[in-house]
C-alpha cells in the first residue's frame, strides 16, 4: 500500500515538475508569448468565449469515441468470423495485413471526397486507424486456446457458441484489451488529422483557425484538451480491463 502511494505521489510530482519547468523556461528565457506561452497564459485562452471550447471538445470527443467504438465492434466481430471460418481467414487476413500497411492518414483526402467533411468522416478516420490493432490482437487471442481445452468441450459435445462464450472470448480479453489500449491512442490522432484535413468544427479545426492569428496559447490549450480526451478514453479502457480481466490473466 505504501509503495503504491509512493508511486502515485511520484507520478503527480513528475507532472507538476514539468509544468514548473515550462513556467521557468518561459519566464527566465523571456520567450515571447506567440512562440511559447506560459502555463498561465495557456489557461487564460480558456476565457476566450468565441473559441467555444466545450462545444469543440464535445465535437472532437464524440468523433474519437464513435470511431473507437465502431472499430471495437467491427474488429472483434471480424476476428470472431475469422476464427469460425478458416477459409474466410485465409482469404481476408493477408488482404487486411496489406491494407494495414496503408498509412491511414493518406486516406484522409479520399474520405473527404467520398463523405464531404464533418464529424462522420473524422470518425471514419479514427475508425480506420484503430480497427486493425483491435482486429489483429483479438484474432490472435481467440486463436490462442489450448487445443486440449477444446478437446474437453468437444468430449462433452459442447457447441461452438459455448466454446466461444466460455473459453475463447474470456481467454481473448487480455489480448483484446492490449489492442484496445494501442487503438485508444491512435483514435485520437485519427480524428485530429481528419479535422486538420477538412472540418468546420472540433479542436483540430480550432487549432488551424488560431494558427492564422498566431494565438499560440489557444493552440497549446487545444493540444492539452486533445490529450485529456485521449487520457479519458485510455483511462476508461484501463478501468474496464481492471473490472473484466482477472489480474493474473492480464497482458502487460
Amino acid at each position, binding site marked *: 500500500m505504501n509503495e503504491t502511494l509512493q508511486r502515485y505521489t511520484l507520478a503527480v510530482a513528475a507532472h507538476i515538475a514539468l509544468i514548473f519547468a515550462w513556467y521557468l523556461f518561459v519566464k527566465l528565457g523571456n520567450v515571447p508569448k506567440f512562440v511559447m506561452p506560459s502555463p498561465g497564459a495557456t489557461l487564460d485562452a480558456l476565457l476566450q468565449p468565441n473559441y467555444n471550447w466545450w462545444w469543440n471538445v464535445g465535437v472532437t470527443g464524440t468523433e474519437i469515441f464513435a470511431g473507437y467504438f465502431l472499430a471495437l465492434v467491427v474488429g472483434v466481430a471480424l476476428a470472431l468470423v475469422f476464427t469460425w471460418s478458416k477459409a474466410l481467414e485465409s482469404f481476408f487476413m493477408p488482404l487486411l495485413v496489406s491494407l494495414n500497411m496503408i498509412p491511414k492518414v493518406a486516406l484522409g483526402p479520399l474520405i473527404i471526397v467520398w463523405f464531404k467533411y464533418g464529424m462522420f468522416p473524422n470518425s471514419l478516420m479514427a475508425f480506420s486507424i484503430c480497427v486493425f490493432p483491435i482486429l489483429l490482437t483479438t484474432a490472435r487471442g481467440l486463436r490462442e486456446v489450448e487445443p486440449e481445452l477444446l478437446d*474437453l468441450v468437444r468430449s462433452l*459435445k459442447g457447441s461452438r457458441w459455448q466454446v466461444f462464450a*466460455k473459453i475463447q472470448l474470456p*481467454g481473448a480479453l487480455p489480448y483484446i484489451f492490449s489492442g484496445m489500449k494501442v487503438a485508444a491512442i491512435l483514435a485520437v490522432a485519427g480524428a485530429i488529422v481528419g479535422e486538420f484535413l477538412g472540418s468546420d468544427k472540433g479542436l483540430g479545426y480550432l487549432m488551424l483557425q488560431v494558427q492564422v492569428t498566431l494565438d499560440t496559447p489557444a493552440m497549446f490549450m487545444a493540444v492539452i484538451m486533445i490529450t485529456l480526451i485521449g487520457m479519458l478514453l485510455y483511462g476508461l479502457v484501463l478501468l474496464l480491463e481492471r473490472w473484466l480481466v482477472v489480474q493474473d*490473466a492480464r497482458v502487460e
Partner: protein
Amino acid sequence: MADPFIRLSGVRKIYRRGRQEHLAISDATFDVMPGELVALVGPSGCGKSTLLKILAGLHPHDGGEVHIGSATHPFNPARDVGMVFQAPLLLKWRRILENVLLPAEILGMPAAEARERARGLLALVGLTGYEDKYPYELSGGMQQRAAIARSLIHDPKLVLMDEPFGALDALTREKMNLELLRIWKEAGKTIVFVTHGISEAVFLGTRVVVLTAGPARMADNFEIGLPYPRTLDMKTHERFGDYTRRVYRLLGME
C-alpha cells in the same frame, strides 16, 4: 463375470499428412471391466494419447472396433466422459469452484445442484477452502486436484487421464498417486490412465497395457496382482519389481 465396459479389438489409427502415412496405432486389443483403473504405458509417440482421444470420441479410428458400455453400465458418449490432461488447463479468469463447474454448464445441469456437487468434489480432492481462489493462487498439484474434480462434476462413467501427474515434481507425484487411488475408490469410476512412468503404471493399475513405439503396437496387457489399498511400501515388494521389469523388458530397456 460381468461384461466388459470397454472393448477394443484390432483398433488401428493412421495419420495422413499429404501423401505420407503414419501408423499411430496398430491392432490395439483389450477389455476394461467396469470400475477398473487401467494404465496405458509406453514411450512418447507410441499412440497412447491417440488411443485416449479415440475413447473420448474425439478422433475416428481407421479400423477395428471400439465399444464402450454394457447392459449393466450403459454409456452415453455425450456425458459419460471426464478428461484430465497433463496441464491442469484451468480457466485463469474463473475461481476454482467455477472451474469445476465448467462441464456442468456445458451440459446444462441444474446450477444449484451442480454447485453443491462441486463443493463435495472439492472436498473429495482435498481442496476445501479453496473454492473462491483463482488458479494462480494454487500450486501445480492443487491445480491438478481441481482438474480431477472438474472431470467428475457431471458424474461420468469413464474418466480419461493423459499423463495427469507428468508435470509435477517426484514427491508431489507420489502423493497424487495415492490420492488418485483414494478418489478412484470413493468415486467408483472406470479410469483409463496414460503414463510413461512404468512404476506409476504398475502402482496404480488394476491392469497395465503396454504400447511400444516405432512401430506403434500393443505389446502386452496383464493384470497387476497387488491388493488395494496400495501403499508406497509395495514399491519395494518383490512382485512389484517383477511387474516393472516385465514392462521394462517389453520396452527394450533391459
